């Protein structure tokens, strides 16, 4: 899918390569780059995912990065019902005799 100028997109770029990072990091974090993701409106006429593009953020800043997502959706949600929590009922707390 191609993105067109003005589409709401997410870009990604590496801000610091592993060797450019702070010295004081745990071993696992040291091995990976410091990455950044920003959303905004595509400035290029058209682009494919992975292309180097520029965007205009909602406050008007122009930032460059690789196109990662087009019209990125909100992926967080309410989760699944949790049996360990569903078992907690008023009845169980007051042993069923609260109004008795």
């Amino acid at each position, binding site marked *: 899918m191609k993105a067109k100028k003005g589409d709401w997109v997410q870009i990604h770029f590496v*801000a*610091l390569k592993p060797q*450019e*990072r*702070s010295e*004081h*990091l*745990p071993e*696992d*974090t040291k091995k*990976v*780059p*410091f*990455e*950044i*993701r*920003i*959303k*905004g409106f595509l400035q290029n006429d058209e682009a494919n995912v992975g292309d180097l593009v520029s965007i205009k*953020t*909602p*406050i*008007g*800043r122009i930032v460059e990065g690789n196109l990662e997502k087009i019209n990125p959706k*909100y*992926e*967080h*949600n*309410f*989760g*699944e*019902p*949790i049996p*360990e*929590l569903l*078992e*907690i*009922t*008023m009845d169980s*707390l*007051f042993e069923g005799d609260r109004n008795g």
Partner: protein
Amino acid sequence: MDRSYEGIMSRQIEIIKKSIGVDYDKFEIEGIAFDYQKMMKEAGYTISEIQKIQRETAVGNTPLVELKNLNALISRCSDRGKGARIFIKDEQTNPSGSFKDRRASVSVYRAKELGYKGVIAATSGNYGAAVASQAAKRGLKSIIVQECFDSRGVGQPEILEKERSCAAYGSEIVQTTVGPELFYYTLLLLEETGFFNASLYSPYAIAGIETLGWEIAKQTQQITGRFPDVVVSTHAGGGLTTGTARGLQKAGATNTLVVGASVDLRGLHMASDEDFNRKSFTTGHTGFGIPFAVFPDRSDVPRNAARVLRYMDRYVLVTQGEVFYMTELLAKLEGLQRGPAGNTSLAAAFALAREMNEDEIIVVNETEYTGAGKLPSAQLTFAKQNNIEVKRGDPIKEDKPGERIVIPESPLQIGYIEIPMIQLKESYINQLFKRLNKTEFTKKEIEFIAEDIKESIGTVQKLIEKLRDNF
């Protein structure tokens, strides 16, 4: 301009100075010593000035609610004559849904007053939404920088929710992977944009919270005829406890015991890419709570205004499972669906109330909004996806941060882990030894340390002597 890590960090002092509008040099005394009260007085605002600023953007004056059904449960779970009454400060009713609006309101007001075009805040939590909301109200632009993803690109659900919230208020959101270089990138943005640094730790931010302590004192007095015996605040960076305690004192509640409560995440490294998504709480936990208590000046300003050892009388930890359990109780018994950070202090209060007398009063500071990503269902689903075991059992005995979350089987299992204050104070002195690489301090420095950890000069001298031998 050199935008490399070293390049930006070498300009840190000048970038901060330009972006915050406080001349911190004015408050320096000697070595580690600085005049904290003078900084709060000259760079902050009085309570009535803050109230005026906050009224302009509809911040504060939140309800204080007695948790009657929960208190009945506490009564049933306590020995005869025990079981203090719990009241909760319902901070969710602020514009963006948390007490952080108080903190942001003064920073954004100040930014506008000083003529900045926009504000930047580095925060993954409610403070981002608060800054974004207050900036919108004052017609300023905002950039929120949040640590959100691990190296797989998996985002913490609560932080993803915060991004959605900030976006709703019109902010630009910069999302980073795990690491303290969040600070580097924030400095880079401050330099590039010339925006105001709405630091969580400026004198304005802390002054903004004083109205919270003031309201707690006044409302408790109005409802019950007395000041609270205990206020329990969720403790992370130290701002909530510091600001609230200062407000309590200003309102005359000088005998109220101030208790800090954090979620126990000891053993998980906060800068670890692998540990990042193994925790179900993004704030109000020991990963911030302990380091910020024992070395407040690790923050993004030269002198942190949140200095919790000056104000905290006790520090207790609760487990993740207990907080999820309390979140359920608050909803099911009180009809209040609220977010995780506030319910941390509620879990601690429940356990503390059982030990206190029935005629005593404990105020829980505070509540926050909840929703997708923040709900126990969202967090526990995410925990299970990350191979964390979730079970019913004894939370204090079986909890293992990053491996197992234990939901209590009965309210009688809600307890707390006490961290002795002296342990934190000794860590504070050890941090000074380590960071300054010295164990000798001048008279003025000793006086400052005594004030900063709320101990006598004699005690500080004894602690230094004792700890010096092991350094």
